[in-house]
């Protein structure tokens, strides 16, 4: 159990030294030596070409799982600010931790992140684990995996939650595989049952729901859909303890290099994944120019404009706007479908919305089967009229 260097195989090449995010390997007498601050994260094992490092982690089921305590979240950032989904996770983690009588921990990785501690603490976090390094400014799968694996092995949380975003869905399975623990994807419900985390998720395109538990491995890990968990009221007076995680990254060891970052969404607007109000247009919009009325309405109600596949395929809207099976899965508080027939492929992407409004000329359109409220009529008349009404009613004191 533990980590060992097979001295006969080690040539002292130093690849492991570079790969170690915790600076826990030194070369002495042309052989690698593992120091006490090793977290067993396994980064060195992956890079060693000679298979000279053996890592054996204790089998979880043989261990006392009760030493794993606390409910942790991974805090996702966007341009050095905390993303909304992270507050959703913190709120949910607080609720679960209260049920268990445990603390909430939050892990933040980034270039400069210490100043964000109070922001996340306000949502019920007790301890913030901070890893700061200039090479952590942009997400990198390998670096983030090693650091998270390391802190989890060291501090032993009971539960670890990630957002089910592009980043979270890239990172969480990697960490789970590294720790050899279970992971449940895209949860829409989390609660405690008989002391275990009960993870509820949709499958078969949202046609069935499954309740899942992870009884024998720790932490119990899950990714959680954005916009599903309710954000609690922040308490700005709340402070968290901070734990600094020393990290060491060799920028030359990064195997995947970002050459260019391209944004197709408008500057300053929220992305679909983060929006809590979405107004989507489909084939019935007729032309790209006609989306203007949806954009006007979006401005009034602070929403984001989405599109069906038909509208994206027609070239009216960018790919990043597409909701549905081959696009994004969204779960906003309000989803207004305009001129969208709502085939199953579209429904899969928006069925999880709190309230669904459908506006379509065809009363037989499948979208009405899942809408809470619908208008059979001409969206080009209804949307501007709705915009006027809401402008009037929302501004009234």
């Amino acid at each position, binding site marked *: 159990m533990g980590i060992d260097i097979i001295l006969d195989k080690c040539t002292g090449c130093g690849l492991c030294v570079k790969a170690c995010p915790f600076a826990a390997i030194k070369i002495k007498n042309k052989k690698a030596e593992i120091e006490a601050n090793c977290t067993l994260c396994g980064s060195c094992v992956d890079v060693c070409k000679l298979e000279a490092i053996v890592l054996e982690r204790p089998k979880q089921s043989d261990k006392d799982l009760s030493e794993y305590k606390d409910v942790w979240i991974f805090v996702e950032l966007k341009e050095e600010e905390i993303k909304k989904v992270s507050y959703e996770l913190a709120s949910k983690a607080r609720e679960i931790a209260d049920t268990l009588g445990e603390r909430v921990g939050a892990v933040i990785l980034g270039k400069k992140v210490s100043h964000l501690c109070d922001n996340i603490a306000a949502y019920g976090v007790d301890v913030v684990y901070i890893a700061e390094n200039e090479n952590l400014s942009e997400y990198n799968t390998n670096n983030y995996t090693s650091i998270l694996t390391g802190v989890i092995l060291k501090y032993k949380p009971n539960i670890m939650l990630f957002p089910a975003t592009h980043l979270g869905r890239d990172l969480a399975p990697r960490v789970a595989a590294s720790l050899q623990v279970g992971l449940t994807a895209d949860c829409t419900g989390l609660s405690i049952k008989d002391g275990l985390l009960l993870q509820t998720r949709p499958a078969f395109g949202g046609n069935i729901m499954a309740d899942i538990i992870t009884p024998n491995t720790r932490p119990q890990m899950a990714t959680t859909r954005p916009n599903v968990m309710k954000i609690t009221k922040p308490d700005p007076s709340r402070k968290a303890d901070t734990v600094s995680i020393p990290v060491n990254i060799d920028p030359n060891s990064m*195997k995947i290099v970002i050459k260019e970052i391209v944004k197709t969404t408008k500057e300053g607007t929220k992305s679909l994944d983060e929006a809590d*109000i979405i107004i989507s247009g489909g084939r019935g919009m007729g032309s790209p120019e006609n989306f203007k009325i949806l954009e006007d309405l979006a401005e009034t109600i602070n929403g984001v404009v989405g599109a069906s596949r038909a509208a994206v395929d027609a070239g009216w809207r960018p790919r990043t706007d597409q909701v549905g099976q081959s696009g994004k899965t969204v779960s906003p508080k309000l989803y207004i479908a305009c001129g969208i027939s709502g085939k199953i492929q579209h429904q899969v992407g928006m069925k999880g919305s709190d309230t669904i409004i459908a506006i379509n000329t065809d009363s037989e359109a499948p979208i009405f089967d899942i809408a809470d*409220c619908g208008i059979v009529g001409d969206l080009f008349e209804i949307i501007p009229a709705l915009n006027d009404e809401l402008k009037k009613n929302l501004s009234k004191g």
Partner: protein
Amino acid sequence: MKFVVCVKQVPDTTEVKVDPKTHTLIREGVPSILNPYDQYAIEECVRIKEKTGEGTVTVITMGPPQARSALMKCLALGADEAILISDKAFAGSDTWATAYTLAQAIKKIGSIDMVFCGQQAIDGDTAQVGPEIAQQLGIPQVTYVEKIDIDEKHKLLIHKQTEEGYHVLETKPPVLFALLPPTSFQPEHPPMSSILRAKKKPFNEWDAKTLGGDVSKYGLDGSFTQVIKTYTPPSRGECELIEGNSKDAARKLSEILLKHEVLVKR
């Protein structure tokens, strides 16, 4: 170059219907198809292989004997050989156990340059197996891949979809890609001539014994997550249709949204 593509045979979820009375899934008559994301992965992999001018594309799947048809389709789409990883011991695998099994197979194939997967499968939608394989192989990964380009020196340029647009990334083999088809992608049936040619291509079957590895990590025993209950989601209830001319309907809708506090006054 050696390429491996991991695929899955899935029920066509777009054909799945819910019985309105019992609220259970009607699975009868639902066809099994090659996961559309995986079909795109195969087509991209074959394209990259053709661009590099050499190499073999091995397509693998873990599944029951009838998953053979998904592999035959992949061979018809241009894969060079197929391996069906099938054994009762693999039944009940969660994503981790699936990834362990596929990683064992990839290690057995040996000295792989690139692994291609679909971003996710349309039945489970977890998107976890790809990254879990990459971790077990100890190779880097790129998920949400829209496009791959390769130059003469085998330098790879990748378009990775992000929430706001895309990143252009540079990497080199070995690497695992999880591919996201463009919206215009239609999973076509290969032509008859390709289907006939596929029948002559090497087809192997591997069971748990062939794979070796730690038997306690396969199937239900190796799965860390346990599904304890499945059920159909509560139905949303009837759609409330708003009557009247456009102006009246818009006014009523506005009232409803405010009354139920879906929208709140500023």
